[in-house]
């Protein structure tokens, strides 16, 4: 069974249509990369998958998005949905709290109070985000004192602490240096074993390196999607080929 199925998804910002009839499936435990020129709707699309667009006024959505066969706009409670579908943003956005409290925030709001359990979750999540060794001595320092790359991995740890099934990443490395980027790419490789990952990226090499599937967006349309090798080396659509070979965008 598919993890996510998107059917005829349209999205409007007021009068402006930002997504046009999107149809797409996501396999469980795979990495799907979303590529396309700036403003083509990648962020908009990824934010429909955990209903972050609900927070923006004037957004109209039609079509269906199924998670494990259930319509997330009709059959799933938005809070349950966001627990299952976590998100990592383009700019690292730690809360102005300690490292520990950042990671423990999710479990806490979902009702976990027990100190020992929280400790375990924090440690496990930070380890899974490959950050534990760097912060284990400053768990109770402000998260804002970490470097950008560390902050981003902290945000990943924070997402993992809620034990999601799907992780959405919107250009998670675009604000980071090459070393931090590499660490996060390695991390994605690792996380794929447990989670389904959808990642937006402007970096073709990155898409090639980390993803199993690739989807190419242009002007709100999903032009083409399929296994990464196929999209990269044997695209069906001329526009995909032009974009990937760098002829426009």
């Amino acid at each position: 069974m598919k993890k996510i199925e998107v059917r005829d998804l349209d999205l409007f910002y007021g009068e402006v249509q930002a997504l046009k009839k999107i149809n797409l499936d996501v396999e469980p435990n795979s990495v799907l990369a979303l590529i396309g020129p700036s403003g083509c709707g990648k962020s908009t699309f990824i934010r429909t998958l955990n209903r972050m667009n609900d927070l923006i006024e004037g957004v109209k959505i039609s079509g269906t998005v199924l998670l494990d066969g259930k319509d997330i706009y009709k059959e799933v409670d938005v809070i349950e949905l966001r627990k299952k579908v976590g998100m990592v943003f383009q700019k690292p956005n730690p809360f102005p709290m300690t490292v520990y409290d950042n990671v423990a925030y999710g479990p806490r709001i979902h009702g976990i109070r027990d100190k020992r359990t929280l400790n375990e979750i924090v440690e496990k999540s930070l380890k899974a985000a490959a950050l534990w060794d760097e912060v284990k001595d400053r768990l109770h320092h402000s998260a804002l004192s970490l470097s950008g790359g560390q902050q981003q991995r902290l945000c990943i740890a924070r997402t993992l602490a809620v034990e999601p099934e799907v992780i959405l990443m919107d250009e998670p490395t675009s604000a980071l240096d090459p070393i931090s980027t590499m660490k996060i790419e390695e991390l994605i490789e690792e996380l794929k074993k447990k989670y389904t990952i959808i990642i937006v990226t402007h970096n073709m090499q990155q898409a090639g390196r980390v993803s199993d599937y690739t989807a190419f967006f242009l002007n709100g349309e999903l032009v083409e999607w399929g296994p990464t090798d196929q999209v990269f080396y044997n695209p069906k659509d001329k526009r995909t080929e032009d974009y990937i070979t760098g002829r426009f965008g």
Partner: protein
Amino acid sequence: MKAKLYDKIATIYFYVVAGFLVAFLISLIGYILYQGRTRLNLSFLTSPPKFMEAGGGIGPQLFNSIELLVITLIISVPIGLGAGIYMAEYARPGLFTEVIRLSVETLSSMPSIVVGLFGLLVFVTMTGWGYSLMAGALALTVLNLPVMTRVSEDAIKSVPSSLREASFALGATKWQTITKVVVPAAMPGILTGIILTAGRIFGEAAALLYTAGMSSPALNFSNLNPSSPTSPLNLFRPAETLAVYIWKVNSEGLAPDARQIADGASAVLLLAVLTFNLFARWLGGVLYRRMTGER
């Protein structure tokens, strides 16, 4: 789920608080206007007060309030604007700028009764003017300067630097750039600010008790000799304002209709302040649209 229940309860709570405040304000305004309704007529607004008997008006007090407002603005707007320009365009980070900033903050949180006492000592006693319009205007200037400085500084700082650069690139001096480009562009913000502060000046009483005084000579509007005590042009006559009058009537009002007078005067004061507020909103909107070229 518990979290969702709490969220619902919290949402309801916030709506209740907001609704309560708005309802409260409306009933407050409604009450004042309702109580003062019988006095909202021309004769009350123009005739002089009476002592020991009913039927007095608030003519001189209203006039004093307006005159005092105008004089205060004439003194404090240029200085406040100047200081605002300095802070926005010239001040460099450093001790001196910090001291000015601290001064502005200190002045703006100064209790107005303290400013009144300062005025009593310096503008009333040391100058030898006695309780006078001028002393009142200077005390109000002390209150208004920090506000004016802040308003101008904020308005000027929000002018995009591309405008300044464009002017400099044409060879303008800094002063030309400020006076011909920056300040005009900041005008909507500055004007709106002036009108809002005008509302505050108009309603101020504590700073005036011991500066402009608690009495007003009957004014003779055909007397244009500025040294005559009954002339409206005399800046050194005692000049009780409307706000001060409300205070005085309640504490030592001898007229049998003292209560109605205070009701009426409160309604007038409130209407004035509401007018300032609405006018500032309206003007701000108009000027903003004109600047951004929207219609």
